């Protein structure tokens, strides 16, 4: 899991100016939205726009995610065909409740890949859980297909389903966040946190990012470009962390060179997860420098 997904920037699929500019804010992934931010009578218009944006605009090596409408809505299938034809990297499923939901979408993705001469399996998937049932099924969803690279929690619908609303400290999301995270780690996929919609409340946003980082999330979905740097800043490891990670990695290289099965540093044995984490710390630090 070397690729960073600290920030996944929502871009309403019906706004040409934002589709053109989304790239410049430095988010790790861009997520073009065909779902909740698009009014019903603009669904097909947005689909054309996202289709052409992916096809025509040079987003460099930026990961492009499209949040499609659910299959139940009756328009999800058309969304899939359009974005697969355009060459999307990742399709994000909203309102996922069961592993079958993922498999149903996957089946259509596969048909589309064949139809448009894409390598079968090249389109990756993400699933967002937005209901208690989805959260309960998090592990089986996370392990439903190899295409799935991550799971996310969508809090707005979730709290409604839980008969509550979002609060500053996020206590109502504690269990769901933990459950998603545990499922993601068990399934070895990414865990992405929900959006924070009060764009002007920077202090509140910082608090929430610090919280989800501490919980262990890989990153957060964000709705405003102004939030990108804040997340990246909080995810930037301290100098001490980086130094330590560097030493761990050096030790691991050393062991590899010597053909040793056991890595040791300062006389202590180091396990594989520690090396993994060290690599992640270094990657985060590098990304922060580039910003």
């Amino acid at each position: 899991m070397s690729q960073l997904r600290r920030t996944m920037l929502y871009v309403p699929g019906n706004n040409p100016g934002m589709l053109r500019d989304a790239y410049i804010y430095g988010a790790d992934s861009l997520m073009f939205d065909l779902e909740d931010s698009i009014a019903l009578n603009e669904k097909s218009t947005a689909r054309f726009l996202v289709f052409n944006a992916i096809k025509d605009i040079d987003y460099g090596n930026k990961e492009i995610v499209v949040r499609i409408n659910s299959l139940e809505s009756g328009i999800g299938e058309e969304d899939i065909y359009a974005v697969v034809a355009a060459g999307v990297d990742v399709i994000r499923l909203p309102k996922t409740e069961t592993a079958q939901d993922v498999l149903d979408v996957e089946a259509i993705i596969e048909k589309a890949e064949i139809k448009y001469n894409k390598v079968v399996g090249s389109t990756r998937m993400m699933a967002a859980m937005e209901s208690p049932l989805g959260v309960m099924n998090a592990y089986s969803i996370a392990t439903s297909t190899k295409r799935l690279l991550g799971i996310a929690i969508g809090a707005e619908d979730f709290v409604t389903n839980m008969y509550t609303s979002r609060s500053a400290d996020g206590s109502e999301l504690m269990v769901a966040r933990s459950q998603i995270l545990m499922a993601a780690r068990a399934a070895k996929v990414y865990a992405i946190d929900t959006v924070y919609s009060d764009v002007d409340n920077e202090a509140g946003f910082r608090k929430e990012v610090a919280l989800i980082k501490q919980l262990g999330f890989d990153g957060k979905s964000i709705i405003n470009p102004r939030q990108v740097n804040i997340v990246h800043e909080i995810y930037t490891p301290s100098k001490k962390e980086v130094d330590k990670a560097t030493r761990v990695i050096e030790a691991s290289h050393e062991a590899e060179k010597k053909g040793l099965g056991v890595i040791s540093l300062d006389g202590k044995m180091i396990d594989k997860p520690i090396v993994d984490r060290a690599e992640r710390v270094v990657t985060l630090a590098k990304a922060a420098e580039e910003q």
Partner: protein
Amino acid sequence: MKNSLCREIPDNILEQLNKKPYSSPFREVPDFRAVGRKVVSVGPNDKKLLDSIDEAIDKTGLKDGMTISFHHHFRSGDRVVNDVIDRIAKKGIKNICLASSSLTDIHYPIVEHIKNGVITSITTSGLRGELAEAISRGVLETPVVFRSHGGRARAIESGEIRIDVAFLGVPSSDEYGNASGERGNSICGSLGYARVDSRYADRVVLITDCLMDFPNLPGSIKQVDVDYVVVVDSIGDASKIASGATRFTTNPKELLIAQKASKVIVNSSYFKEGFSFQTGSGGASLAVTRFLKKHMLEDGIKASFALGGITQPMVELHEEGLIEHLYDVQSFDLYSANSYNRNRKHHEIDASYYANLYTKGCIANKLDIVILSALEIDIDFNVNVITGSDGAIRGASGGHSDTAASAKLTVIVAPLMRGRIPTVVKSVQNIITPGETVDVLVTDRGIAVNPRRQDLIDRLNKAGVPTMLITELQCLVESFIGSPKQNEFEDEIVGIIEYRDGTILDVIRKIKEV
């Protein structure tokens, strides 16, 4: 002939104006004496207070062929310019030269007065709206002369602009001509541009809607410079003269540009204790202040002064002790207009002190960093802030070229494109600021440093701030928008752009109608 920036300046224009073409920012050496106004004596029994603008026009002896002047401190809230010119027109006076410090969209009625022969020539810093459009289409027979704020002060002092009557709207005055911009019904703060006119015009008429008891002090314009005072119902729309508050932009793209610009500044050699800076009033340019503040606090650095059009964020930095002095030639909002009352180190300065090259040292000379915006910038770093992409006039020269030439670090902030209109182009439509006085361009998609500043390129790259060639940015923009069709122009010249030293930088031609 072509000037040093390869702009074709017709010989007959140079001859008519008795001007040289532009060569380089500091080459020309002045060789003249400043002119003086006609001396008048007001005795102990003379009264200055008049009943109406009409009476003032009569008393000043304004007649055909004379030059009148105004200031632009009232921005789009101004009523004075339109009211005075209306009265002049009603009196049947014709062939007037209008020498305003600037003109805005509110001044569209002037179009009619051009058509009916009342106004036959104009010099200003800028033009906007319908008036600008009409002039771009050739409504005025003689070309408008565009001057920078410093350049205008120079031209007044050298006698190139000889003002017969200055009609100066002021927020308050006493009956003897002591005027203030910070007290009154509609306040504008600094009266910096008007002060030059008040000292050099043969006749000075103050127009106010707030008559104060004598003496109205402290003040901006002084009784010794004023012939008459007229009280009118209203000098304009207070809310448009000084907007309530200048808020920081929330536009993410402007913030991104501002953040990148602050990175350039912080990593330059000029960001150190006691530095000085100026920002333009555009969204990105203003927002630089906010990011600078963060770095100033982090690094424990304070600025010795900030200059220019002063806005609320600047005053706040001053009040927080991060900026020692404010030099204010124009206050942009109520907060800054009110600041004089409580901040002793908030100084009103006039246009000459601000940016006139031919003085014994304008304050712009002491400027370390200036952040300016642009409508267009070309691969030679020449900047256009006067004409739009269609070639029509829609901007103002302002202090752009003055501060760019003076400051040690000139940063242009602009989006790479606006809709489908490119900002970075091969060659700008018109030059206001020569590329040799511009150091860095910061856009949302990359930073380009003028190759003349290799020192800066090295410093930035060493600090990990990536830079690109400006030609790369220009190619990038074309990859998005395609290449625009060149504008077509007539031979007729509608505008002449004078550099701050009085040489001719460029001409604006009449747009060809399709």
